[in-house]
């Protein structure tokens, strides 16, 4: 993991002191709310329905056990005993007092954490593949580059007042687990024919009110030019992005209105001017950052196959969990483990202080001291010996975190929605809970196979509904909640935006509607190997429309 040097410590400490002073001045009345609001947002402090909310940055979703224990401590001491992991690989507390925030920031700084740039019109937490440095299909670890981007973008004077927020994601594998095509900048780390590292660069993706898939504007950018090229993109955006209308201010609108070709030309022109500047990354600097992310020394554990086979025979729960929640590691003796924060009927992404402490213990005992947060709102232990999987599974059963549903219909992404959020129009979490309960049967979930349900409580799309295989958007209509369904979205490579299937459904109808869609898929698929998404792409909307609305058309 990256470790703070003296500069980093001093930088965060100074920022904590600065914000502590700003809070004190706000409380004394020296600063008005209008003056304070942009300052608190830059430090991750929002106001929600019931209280303030504090969003803590977890760079590219990487956590040490010590950091996770600190988050558990903060949940217990200053909040209500739980935290909510988000689709930006961050953590939110929903009940902090403003008067406690300076103290919380001091505690976070002790473990090299902060809340800087978790809000505001700046470059937000850079996200990455949650299996980075472990996945078998990875060309190179994306985290060193994410860390370089983090350092470069932190309080960047030129990019602290952008037209709108700006999100960057990096993946190092062909299989895109970081949703790079729905980010403002998506970077796909790869090798060229000569074996050199570089990036395919995607620009102008995003969800929200106007969902768009990013355009690839460069097939190969040498790694040394990472900062000159991203600076070029940000400059073009900062200069030309719209500031007259908040809803048209993201770079996706600029790309759309300018045209990909013209925008690419502008970026390339800026890049040509910057290419040989101090932004060019010396090889030694890249390699120095890489050393922070050296893979752990993994001892040979060839007994894994036998241990797993034995446990699988005697414990069907383990076999289910192994099948869904263990992913192939580059070392055949090891696996990447997904700890599902989607227990049946639970709140997606929530973890209690006791669970966070227990996961920190398990990461030390079985996981080589590493924890990741996935944008799918689960926690990951990226390096677990297969021989330890039965013991890890048993320990997860003890703390209620052994749900075997990674990638299944109950592994739902949901934003906090109207239960907490001041922007929401409808609740998301109760919908997720009811769908989860309806499809609780492990056998039924396994029969359905890979299916991503994503739920947002408003058009801002924090729940990524546009890229759900089944997406659900909550709106308010005549004072009541109404849920609109989109089908066929995907945030994987070759991302697609889901299509609205028809009229929305009330809170009492939405789970039935999802079930109808699932049953229609099962009835029409060409076999178990044809996933929901593949079947939808083959069949189109017609059979789903007929199943959902056919009786209405016939009655009319």
């Amino acid at each position, binding site marked *: 993991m990256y470790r703070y040097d003296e500069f980093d410590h001093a930088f965060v400490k100074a920022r904590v002191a600065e914000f502590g002073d700003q809070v004190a001045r*706000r*409380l004394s*009345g020296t600063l*008005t*709310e209008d003056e304070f609001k942009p300052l608190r947002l830059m430090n991750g402090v929002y*106001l*929600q*329905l*019931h*209280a*303030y909310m504090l969003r803590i940055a977890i760079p590219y979703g990487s956590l040490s056990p010590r950091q996770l224990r600190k988050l558990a401590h903060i949940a217990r001491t200053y909040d*209500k005993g739980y935290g909510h992991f988000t689709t930006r690989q961050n953590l939110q507390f929903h*009940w*902090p*007092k*403003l*008067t406690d925030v300076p103290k919380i920031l001091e505690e976070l700084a002790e473990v090299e954490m902060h809340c800087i740039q978790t809000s505001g019109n700046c470059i937000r937490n850079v996200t990455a593949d949650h299996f980075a440095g472990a996945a078998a299909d990875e060309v190179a670890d994306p985290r060193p580059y994410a860390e370089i981007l983090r350092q470069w973008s932190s309080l960047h004077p030129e990019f602290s007042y952008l037209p709108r927020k700006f999100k960057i994601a990096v993946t190092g594998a062909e299989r895109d687990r970081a949703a790079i095509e729905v980010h403002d900048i998506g970077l796909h780390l790869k090798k060229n024919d000569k074996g050199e590292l570089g990036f395919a660069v995607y620009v102008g993706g995003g969800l929200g009110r106007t969902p768009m898939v990013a355009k690839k504007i460069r097939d190969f950018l040498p790694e040394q030019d990472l900062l000159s090229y991203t600076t070029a993109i940000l400059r073009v955006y900062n200069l030309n992005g719209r500031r007259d209308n908040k809803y048209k201010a993201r770079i996706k609108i600029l790309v759309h209105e300018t045209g990909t070709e013209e925008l690419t030309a502008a970026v390339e022109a800026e890049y040509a001017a910057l290419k040989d500047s101090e932004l060019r990354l010396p090889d030694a600097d890249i390699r120095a950052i890489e050393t922070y992310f050296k893979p752990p020394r993994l001892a040979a554990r060839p007994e894994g196959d036998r241990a797993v086979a034995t446990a699988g025979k005697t414990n069907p729960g383990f076999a289910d969990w192994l099948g869904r929640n263990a992913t192939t590691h580059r070392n055949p003796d090891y696996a990447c483990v997904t700890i599902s924060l989607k227990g049946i009927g639970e*709140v997606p992404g929530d973890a209690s202080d006791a669970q966070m402490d227990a996961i920190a213990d398990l990461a030390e005992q079985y996981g080589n001291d590493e924890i990741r947060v996935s944008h799918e709102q689960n926690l990951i232990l990226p390096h677990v010996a297969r021989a330890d999987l039965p013991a890890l599974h048993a320990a997860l059963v003890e703390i209620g975190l052994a749900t075997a549903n990674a990638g299944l219909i109950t592994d739902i992404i949901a934003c906090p929605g*109207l*239960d*907490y959020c*001041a922007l*929401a*129009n409808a*609740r998301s*979490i*109760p919908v997720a*809970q009811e769908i989860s309960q309806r499809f609780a049967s492990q056998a039924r979930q396994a029969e359905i196979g890979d299916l991503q349900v994503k739920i947002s409580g408003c058009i801002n799309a924090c729940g990524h509904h546009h890229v759900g295989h089944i997406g659900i958007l909550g709106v*308010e209509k005549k*004072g*009541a*909640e109404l849920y609109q369904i989109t089908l066929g979205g995907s945030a994987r490579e070759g991302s697609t935006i889901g299509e609205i299937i028809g009229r929305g459904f009330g809170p009492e109808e939405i789970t039935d509607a999802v079930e109808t869609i699932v049953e229609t898929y099962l009835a029409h698929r060409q076999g178990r190997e044809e996933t929901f998404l593949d079947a939808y792409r083959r069949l189109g909307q017609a059979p789903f429309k007929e199943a959902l609305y056919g009786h209405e058309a016939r009655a009319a």
Partner: protein
Amino acid sequence: MKILAANRLTDGETVWLGAGDRWVETIDAAHVARDKEAEERLSAAGDAALAANLVLDVTLVDIDLSDGRVLPSRLRERIRAGGPSIHPDLGKQARNAAQHAA
């Protein structure tokens, strides 16, 4: 009919303007404006409290009275008055339940 809702500066707690221009923590204690003039009085008191740095996010909220109890028209404000619907153990609803149990 309207009441005036806000969040308290120090801790973000949802509060409403009650009798004697005091900010109260339960919606049932909110002062109900039944005409335009009373609404304007609420708004003026809200502006003053905002300027005095007591509260933020001050908004007039549409309500009905049901059996003498204040019921906001919008679900948003009903959730704001009770707490997260998914967590009856948290927020004002939990405190109210504890008081009733006592």
